[in-house]
């Protein structure tokens, strides 16, 4: 058995002169396969050659070459051809005296020739219908005075446009009534396999009221079963509308008499299917005045086949939307921050975790931000303190075609001083465009724990290694800077009961000099309730996450003191008492300035642990000394 040739042939190609022959022969082969004779094929070849030539020469004047699409379709005794370009339309052009000849040729070769603006006003669409005895297919009605061909073209246009499931279904039923039916219903098959009404139209006895009723009508169980059964067969089905049938599909006698006022003779159920997948059904109600439906079934099914394409688009789109929503829900629920950005660094997707990490109030704020705007809210460095600029981030390196290893960064939020340790991995999203997906893992806790552990191990060794505790304390202070604080001071109470500075370590030598000067000129006054004295007095630690100008002014003893304090640029501070066996023997001071880091409770707990160990070591050394 020889497989039947496909009822439709479609090609879309670049609008180059060489495609004229390719498309001409494509249509010829299609028509020959469907049994067209050589005369008809010669007509088609000539007309298609003209239409494609026109598309190439005239449609792309003064602009880049576009695309040309062609569709051939077999009908009963005919072949339909559509040539579509995305150019500027078939404007007559001074350099093209051949155009007149070409149009003459098309009109002479085709039984129907129609040239109009392409869908959505783009380009030109040439429709050609050829008589082709011997070709089998639906009756398209291409003869003079037969408007069925026009109707098919209109249905196709509605189905192909983007109005699904928006206005498309309503436009479709309004087109069908009253041209080929008195009532029309459009149902979509839902997930449970049952038809759901999408649109309906009716013109006849009972008027608009009945039309509205039809659009909102919920079919009875029996009717659903009847419809589903007929749709399952995959073939159109004609029902005679009589009392028995109306009673069978009505919810109650009132509805039955209501439906009877429509005075329909036949109801045709047409399956809407694409590639054997049942998408829905098109129902047509015909009054007794219309021709018997059996005669027009091939044509009616041709209408339904075109409408099905609109459905296919809708279902495809909604499927894509569902997938996307599902995907976004999964990403949204991830603890890791995920962002997707383009080559400019513009963020096109971010989940909740990413918004939190980027210090944004919402995902929308992240999406609205300009490239670099969010990164600018942070001071980003590597572990060794060297600065990281945006071009160093893995996602940007990836899209620049560079190596993009996972990057560990310390990000300090400028506004809050919060410190994040972030591990950023980037992968490319192959989505047509150039997009990078970043998975940003917040490793702050792990990183802090690791660093503190290392610190305690190193400090512990120092504290037991020497009896020169003043030198030891200087080493311990040095351990804090710069990884845990920008500067660290240790003051001990001497035998006379005065505070002596044992260590001051600062990452910036110039600022160390100023801090020394400050200490010399304004030594801490014991017996007050401020700063070091207060901590020494009651032993309670002092945590100042953010030092304000007002605080400095309140602390300063005079204008010069305030100036010196301001010059140090202190951002955050912790003061912790060194206590051994109930005696407060000194104070550990930790300050952040340039890094903009703010100390938090976990930093304070850690500082207290270090202070406890240091105090014991000092106490032991003193006793033994």
């Amino acid at each position, binding site marked *: 058995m020889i497989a039947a040739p496909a009822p439709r042939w479609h090609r879309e190609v670049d609008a180059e*002169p060489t495609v*004229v022959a390719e498309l001409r022969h494509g249509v010829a082969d299609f028509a020959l396969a469907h049994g067209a004779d050589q005369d008809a094929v010669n007509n088609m070849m000539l007309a298609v050659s003209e239409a494609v030539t026109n598309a190439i020469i005239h449609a792309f004047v003064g602009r880049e070459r576009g695309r040309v699409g062609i569709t051939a379709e077999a009908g009963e005794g005919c072949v339909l051809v559509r040539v579509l370009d995305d150019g500027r339309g078939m404007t007559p052009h001074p350099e093209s005296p051949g155009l007149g000849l070409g149009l003459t040729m098309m009109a002479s070769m085709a039984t129907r020739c129609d040239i109009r603006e392409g869908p959505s006003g783009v380009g030109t669409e040439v429709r050609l219908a050829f008589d082709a005895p011997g070709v089998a297919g639906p009756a398209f009605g291409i003869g003079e005075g037969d408007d069925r061909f026009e109707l098919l073209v209109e249905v196709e246009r509605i189905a192909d446009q983007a109005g699904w499931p928006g206005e498309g279904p309503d436009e479709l039923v309004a087109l069908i009534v009253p041209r080929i039916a008195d009532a029309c219903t459009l149902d979509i098959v839902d997930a449970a396999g049952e038809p759901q009404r999408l649109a309906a139209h009716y013109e006849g006895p009972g008027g608009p009221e009945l039309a509205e009723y039809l659009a909102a009508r919920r079919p009875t169980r029996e009717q659903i079963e009847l419809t589903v059964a007929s749709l399952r067969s995959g073939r159109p089905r004609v029902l005679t509308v009589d009392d028995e049938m109306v009673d069978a599909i009505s919810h109650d006698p009132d509805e039955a008499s209501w439906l009877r006022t429509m005075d329909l003779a036949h109801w045709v159920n047409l399956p809407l299917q694409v590639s054997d997948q049942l998408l829905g059904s098109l129902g047509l109600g015909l009054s007794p005045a219309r021709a018997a439906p059996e005669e027009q079934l091939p044509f009616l099914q041709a209408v339904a086949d075109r409408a099905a394409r609109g459905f296919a688009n809708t279902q495809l789109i909604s499927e894509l939307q569902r997938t996307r929503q599902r995907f976004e829900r999964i990403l949204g629920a991830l603890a890791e921050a995920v962002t997707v950005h383009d080559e400019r660094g513009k963020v096109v997707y971010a989940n909740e975790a990413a918004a939190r990490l980027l210090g944004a109030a919402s995902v929308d704020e992240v999406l609205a931000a300009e490239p670099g705007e969010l990164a600018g809210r942070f001071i980003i460095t590597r572990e060794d303190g060297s600065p990281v600029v945006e071009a160093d981030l893995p996602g940007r390196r990836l899209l620049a075609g560079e190596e993009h290893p996972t990057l560990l960064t310390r990000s300090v939020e400028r506004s809050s001083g919060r410190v994040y340790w972030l591990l950023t991995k980037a992968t490319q999203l192959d989505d047509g465009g150039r997009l990078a997906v970043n998975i940003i893992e917040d490793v702050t806790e792990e990183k802090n724990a690791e660093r503190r552990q290392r610190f305690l191990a190193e400090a512990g060794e120092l504290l037991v290694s020497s009896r020169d505790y003043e030198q030891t304390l200087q080493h311990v202070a040095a351990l804090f800077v710069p990884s845990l604080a920008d500067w660290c001071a240790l003051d001990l109470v001497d035998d006379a009961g005065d505070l002596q500075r044992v260590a001051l370590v600062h990452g910036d030598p110039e600022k160390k000099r100023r801090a020394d000067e400050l200490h010399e000129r304004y030594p801490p006054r014991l017996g007050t309730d401020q700063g070091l004295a207060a901590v020494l007095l009651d032993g309670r630690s002092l945590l100042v996450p953010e030092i304000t100008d007002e605080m400095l002014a309140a602390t300063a003893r005079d204008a010069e003191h305030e100036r010196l304090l301001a010059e140090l640029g202190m951002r955050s501070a912790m003061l912790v008492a060194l206590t051994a066996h109930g005696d407060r023997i000194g104070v550990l001071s930790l300050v952040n300035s340039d890094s903009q880091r703010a100390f938090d409770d976990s930093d304070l707990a850690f500082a207290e642990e270090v202070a406890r160990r240091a105090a014991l070591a000092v106490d032991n050394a003193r006793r033994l000394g």
Partner: protein
Amino acid sequence: VTEDVFEFATHEQGDSAVVRLVGELDLAEVAPLKAELDRLCANGLDRLTVDLRELDFLDSTGLHLLMQLRSHCESQELPLTLVPGPPSVQRLFQITGTDDHFTFEPAP
């Protein structure tokens, strides 16, 4: 197969030339033929023949070229003769009413 769908061959003898067109002439093939016809017209011939017998396909692009050639030959008083092609090609001249503009003479 759309490769080599069209070829032409020129046979020059004294002051006359015969250009034989073979295959399918359309937009993609018309430029080299036009260049050849321009060259021949500039050669001071006293007779030019275009042989369409082996031409399988002709559309308005090729017809337009022949019309241009005819005007050019007329202005140069150069006699132009076409050797008729197969019915599908000849039909084109009839549909467009251009058959009266050309002198068709079967091959000798």
